[in-house]
């Protein structure tokens, strides 16, 4: 496959996530759309690493390809930590306001 199809797919997934964040008010769905955007970026990183694996420059130093996939691994690690804290915040929000509507959060005080 050519790299442009992977870029197109990742951009489409990322923009779907953006549209979700902008149009929904349920905080859980907004959070899920952020996960969707993270995954689009991960897919693009892996696709670019495999694109460079085919090029002649990298043949001398094949570790460069592994670096991108280690990056994706660390993005997944950070995403897992982020989800646990974020869901705890949403649960606390629900306990205080009995809703997951983000419009209740438009002021930090009270």
């Amino acid at each position, binding site marked *: *496959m*050519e*790299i*442009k*199809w*992977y*870029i197109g797919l990742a*951009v*489409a*997934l990322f*923009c*779907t996530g*953006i*549209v*979700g964040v902008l*149009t*929904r*008010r349920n905080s*859980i*769905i907004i*959070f*899920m*759309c952020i*996960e*969707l955007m993270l*995954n689009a970026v*991960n897919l693009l990183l*892996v*696709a670019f*690493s*495999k*694109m460079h*694996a*085919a*090029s002649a420059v990298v043949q001398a130093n094949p*570790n460069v*390809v*592994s670096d991108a*996939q*280690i990056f994706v*691994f*660390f993005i*997944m*690690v*950070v*995403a*897992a*930590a*982020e*989800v*646990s*804290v974020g*869901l*705890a915040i*949403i*649960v*606390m929000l629900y*306990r205080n306001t009995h*809703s*997951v509507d983000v419009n209740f959060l438009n002021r930090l005080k009270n």
Partner: protein
Amino acid sequence: MSITEILFWGLSALALFSAVMVVASKSPVYSILYLIVVFFAISGHYILLNAQFLAIVNIIVYAGAIMVLFLFVVMLMNLNAESEPKKHRMLQFAGLISGGCLFLVLIAAISDTAQASNMVQMGSGDNGLIKNLGMVLFKDYVLPFEISSVLFLSAMIGAVVIGKKERS
């Protein structure tokens, strides 16, 4: 059309359809189930790119752990389509337009580059196998790996502290 291309287009169509359904479906539980389908489709893409370690980690961490956590939270809160807060029609339309504009701008910026038709190595290359990635992870990236354990510890403590009921 080779089998790889057929799989690529099939998985792409599945991922895009499910991603749209994540945003469009009314009930949060359906959104979560569609998001799991997206993660499985992306794992299929990783396998097509011969990044098997990432494919398995994606299924275990995202579809297995993170989405189950989401499902637990949604079911604990007893959310359904009737209690779903709705945004104003015009605001939804504006969000759709701005997302579409971003899509158009990114595609237009990328379509002119000379590297756009570079080929991606598919189904070959052993950089994504667990043997090579393990060597790189524990040789060159030992320090970030250890720091990520501290990150997990702090995230765990943070989640417990935030989620704890306040005594009044």
